[in-house]
């Protein structure tokens, strides 16, 4: 298992410098407002006209449309769209699969989460940090303001390795917490032993808007790059210890690639079919470059 990232490693000067530049780059592309500045379903006092409604006592008299009254003799008031800040919930996977191999996925997951949190906090949005493995864990009360970024980084650095991946269970637990609707960012490899279907089913029932950050590695798509994966080997699951005996040959490799591709297609199909954002972050490549590219192209971001 890979070593857990320390605070200094997460917050090393080089990464922080890169993060500031990253914030500037992102802001140039978010001209319609903050990351958490989301259109509310509530109607109220705003700048943008939305609709008319019949006047009832208590309505703001300033919103009465007098032209309609002259024509129809009845009182209607303007209804404007109301903008509200949107809480950002970071749900980070800390199962054993995230801590395996060189350049473990958890490094990419935490750095990606910190980058997103940095953007949100710099725009005065609320950020809450959750982690999951077999159970859901909330690490502190929500953070507000950029100065909370250091505290958030400390909390992230404290995330240690747990056992399995029970994402579907944890999403359900998160739903029962009666949190204010916001943007739920799930950062995980989505390798749940129960199967991806169960995860997607639980995400479907989630009342938050979703952004799925899938942490991948080069070996996932091309296992032949692993020099140990040759001949007759027993593959042991790092979370469940379940063993699979494999004779590495072209037929098995081809089937593996096809199944992994189907896994990704299933995840992508779910995201596009439900208007959910999905991005893949390769743990073996630079994190900030991948995020910047994501925002510049706005690919798959809802």
């Amino acid at each position: 298992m890979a070593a857990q990232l320390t605070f200094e490693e997460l917050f090393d000067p080089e990464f922080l410098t890169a993060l500031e530049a990253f914030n500037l780059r992102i802001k140039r592309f978010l001209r319609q407002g903050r990351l958490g500045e989301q259109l509310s379903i509530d109607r109220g006092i705003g700048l943008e006209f939305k609709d008319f409604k019949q006047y009832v006592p208590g309505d703001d008299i300033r919103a009465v449309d007098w032209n309609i009254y002259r024509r129809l003799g009845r009182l209607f008031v303007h209804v404007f769209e109301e903008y509200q800040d949107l809480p950002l919930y970071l749900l980070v996977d800390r199962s054993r699969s995230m801590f395996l191999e060189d350049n473990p996925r958890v490094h990419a997951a935490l750095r990606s989460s910190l980058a997103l949190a940095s953007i949100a906090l710099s725009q005065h949005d609320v950020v809450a940090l959750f982690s999951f493995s077999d159970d859901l864990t909330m690490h502190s009360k929500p953070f507000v303001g950029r100065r909370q970024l250091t505290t958030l980084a400390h909390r992230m650095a404290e995330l240690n390795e747990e056992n399995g991946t029970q994402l579907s269970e944890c999403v359900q637990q998160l739903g029962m917490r009666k949190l204010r609707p916001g943007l739920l960012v799930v950062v995980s490899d989505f390798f749940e032993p129960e199967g991806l279907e169960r995860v997607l089913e639980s995400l479907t029932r989630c009342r938050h808007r979703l952004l799925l950050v899938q942490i991948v590695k080069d070996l996932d798509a091309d296992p032949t790059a692993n020099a140990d994966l040759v001949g007759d080997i027993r593959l042991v699951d790092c979370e469940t210890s379940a063993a699979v005996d494999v004779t590495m040959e072209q037929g098995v490799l081809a089937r593996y690639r096809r199944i992994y591709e189907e896994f990704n297609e299933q995840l992508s199909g779910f995201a596009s079919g439900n208007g959910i954002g999905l991005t893949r972050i390769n743990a073996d490549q630079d994190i900030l470059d991948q995020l910047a590219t994501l925002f510049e192209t706005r690919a798959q971001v809802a």
Partner: protein
Amino acid sequence: MNFLNLTPLTLGIGLAGIAGILFLLQQLRIRYTELPIATTMFWAAAVREAPVRVLRQRFRHLLAYLLALLICWLLWIGFGAPMVDERRATGFSVLVLDGSAHSATADVFEQSKSQLLSDISGYPRDSREVFLAGANNVRVLAAGEENMVLVRRLEEFEPVAARSSIDELLRVLPRNDMYPEQVNVLVYGNAPVPSEAIDQLPDGFNVARRTETPDDFENRGIVALGIGEAMSGDWDKVDVLFRVLSTEGLDTSIEDLSVQSGGVAVGSDRIESISDNEFRVRDVEADGSTFEVVIEPTDELEFDNVAQVNLPDKDRIRVTIGTDVPVSIRRAIQSDNAVQVVQSDPHVAVVGATDDEPSIPYFRTVPSQEQYYAFSIGYTGDLDAEEALRQSVASLGLTQIDAAAMATDLDVDIEVDLEVVDTRFVSLWSELVGQDFNFKDSMSFPLFISKAIRYLANQQPWYAYVAAGRRPYEQTSGSSLARTDLLSEYAAGTYYVRNEAGVFETEDGDSLNVSLLDSRAAIPGEVADLSATELEMVRSQSAFGLVTWLILLVLVLLGLEWFLYQRGLMP
């Protein structure tokens, strides 16, 4: 490397064993290397679609099994070096390397030796042996001995100027009880095998040739060199005849011949051509020297370009004659040009009835009252009495005498007696040579006297020719019947000269010239057919070639396996 000729049963057992072992290996569980990984769920799904082989599960990798089985079988067959020649498969193998003059041309011997050394590894060690058939047959590798020994033993051997001794070997082999019923004799070299030697082989003996005979052989060779009494009648001279044979396209003239007698060149004007290939030199001094004929220039086979023979040493017999010797005997002696009448230092004495008995071999006449038998012979040899009497009677020419007429005239039986004494003598009744009896006037009388004098002088025989490995033709003056056991000390067989040309010392210190004089060696293609069998040519594929091809096939199959593996068509 090979398994030294597996029997078909052993080969089959090996093939079946390999098939079984590979099958079990395919069925055995694998000892896996454990590797922790995050994507096990995908691998499990991939494996579920095509599980790896496990014991007692369905046999899934038939193609891999068949390919591996084919590769192993080919290697087994290749290294097993199966015998493609049926002769090798059963029975005992006797490999005969010809080291005679027949294989002394060009590089025939070296090629034959290489072929034999190449073949020897293909025979089971306990059922083969190797003979070198040179001047004699020498077993150079016995059954059970390591093949490597043969290489060192053959290093020193070169072909010798000898007749092939393979026929002798074929006569001896069937007498060996160690051989099984099936014996295969393979000849390496050019030696002809006499048809009579083949005919005399018992059932189960097969003879075949393993090497080919070159057909571009060019040679001239002396195939006969012999001595005869001089036609001129001179006692101390002989005539020498020799025959030279040539392969087609070549001929031999007198100018191609170099002849010496006693180290002195004989002029070409003295050499007579009496036919296309026969020559004669007349009146050669019989002084005991060496007569040599050389063909120039030399050709492919050098052994038959030179032939030598010992000339006889024909000194006159010194005879002293007593005072009481009948006139008829005295005249017969004086007319014999081989006899010199002397008064001193005689070899033989001839005495009459009243003369004293000499201490040297003598011929005498005595009255019938003093001697019971008509002829009495004093013998000094060590033969048994019957054989000694037979040989003595023959030597004296008594078989030529009309004994019945003598008996009628004398009215008594004419008998011959032989007694073993220290000094030879021949004694006969004086009445037989008297005036009243006509024996002295018969044609056989001077012959009898002449033979008796030679018998008493006990002159050494001389040889009309001495050819390697053949029976010598011995003769003395006036008779070709002489002691044929004289050469037995240095002959391969009782009556055969040592089978190798050259000069050899006799038991009494004399030098004896032996020449090849073998027409089969000189003209193999033309003469051998007369009495030699054309052996079946064995052309078995060498084990090395088979192994090479099988290994190449294995490599091709391995390449195919790699290709299929890369394409994911086999595990």
